[in-house]
């Protein structure tokens, strides 16, 4: 009995402060492991760990494995898990947290955040976004001219119908928006 207690204590002591901290989050503490989230998730079949397994892995101190997994990046934000969870866990928002944590530690799978980064850089510079510009920036950032080429027939179809946005509109308050975002960055958001 005492040996076992000692083992558990030493395993917990070996956790990084972040892995230790996440054990105290309500999502991890309150989950009843029923699997409703995983069964409800339309993309779970492609995930390294299903939503239920994510919580189980965190309880087992496997934060790094969770952050290296493709799971958060397969969340399409449909909120089925959130609205069905019998424990009231806001799992979709937790997925967003995991994405931010993975990025801060540079653990996210290669390429997983490139489209998001392209979007944010367009929005922050212009105040608006435009899908076509985003797609082009995204494929260039992935050194994938083939992807760009595959986009061509689709782009042409959109173009003849006057639906191809090449450049985003730039808002008048762009400078003010920039100041707001700088202010927040200085306040310590990653």
């Amino acid at each position, binding site marked *: 009995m005492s040996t076992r207690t000692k083992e558990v204590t030493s395993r917990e002591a070996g956790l990084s402060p972040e892995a230790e901290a996440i054990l105290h989050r309500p999502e991890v503490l309150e989950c009843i492991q029923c699997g409703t989230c995983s069964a409800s998730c339309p993309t779970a079949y492609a995930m390294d760990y299903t939503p239920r397994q994510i919580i189980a892995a965190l309880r087992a101190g496997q934060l790094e494995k969770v952050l290296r997994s*493709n799971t958060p990046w*397969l969340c399409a934000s449909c909120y089925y898990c*959130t609205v069905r969870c019998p424990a009231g866990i806001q799992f979709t928002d937790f997925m967003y947290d995991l994405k931010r944590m993975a990025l801060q530690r540079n653990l996210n799978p290669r390429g997983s955040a*490139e489209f*998001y980064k392209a*979007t944010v850089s367009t929005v922050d510079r212009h105040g*608006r*976004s435009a899908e076509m510009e985003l797609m082009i920036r995204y494929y260039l950032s992935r050194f994938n001219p083939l992807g760009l080429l595959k986009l061509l027939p689709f782009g042409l179809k959109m173009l003849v119908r006057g639906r191809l946005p090449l450049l985003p509109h730039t808002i008048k308050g762009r400078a003010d928006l920039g100041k707001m975002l700088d202010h927040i*960055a200085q306040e310590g958001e990653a």
Partner: protein
Amino acid sequence: MAYSYYPGCTQEVSTKAYDHSSRAVAKALGLELVEIDDWNCCGSSPSYSLRDVATYALNARNLALAERGVPGGDVVTICNGCFGMMDKTNRRLAEDADLRREIDEALAVADLQYRGTLTVRHLLDILVKDVGREAIEQKVTHPLEGLKVAGYLGCAFSRPSGIDDMEFPTALDDLLAWIGADVVDYPLRAACCGGVLMMGEQQDVALKLVHTLLAEAVRRGATCLATACPLCHLNVEAYQGQVNSRFGTDLSLPVLFFSQLLGVSMGLGTEELGLGEELVSAKALLAPFMT
């Protein structure tokens, strides 16, 4: 009744038909939509995936501009994504004092202030709940009799907002029935289109979801889909070619915004409803109602 209107970035070019037709039907129904002056992008899930406070700030700027432009007028969005992001921001600001302080400070840098007086709405919700069945039916001059439509509402209209049933929302089917359409029973009405996954490394996963959505609509006899979100709309409309080559199918289903179908039933014109911009033409399908 005056509302602050938030068109959303997609509506500037690639789905401008949604913006045009929304403005046209709102006007015909006596709703005054005042576009938010110099609005910015809501950031959507890409921005929220990378940073939370900055994304709330993007949305708070729009809320502040809306409150200044039309005091006391609710904000009307037409994109499920924009609606979800702006509604989330509005709710979080009301319940989290620390976040509120941070956002107030950021707004002050741009000489803006948000007092938290607004409610964020979706145009479809306003039509169904505020305008209502009677007023809409009165405006219908060209009921869409015999048009077999599957209403595809998608996720973020009712999840997590709760403005409609979170499993089986009825707003879109109700509206389609009021304008005389033959509404197909479509169990996938609130299922996921893959959202932003269509634009990145995980496109295959999104294509699979879109394939299921399209194939089921066709199997149930739908001759077109009606949508209430430009992101759902683009996923189910613009990727049909890729779905076909990936799954060996021959799907070719016209996709229309609910506002376009509503406009047709009210006798509005092709031009103001942005008809003819579909990737799969709906011309023959709508011809019986366009007189």
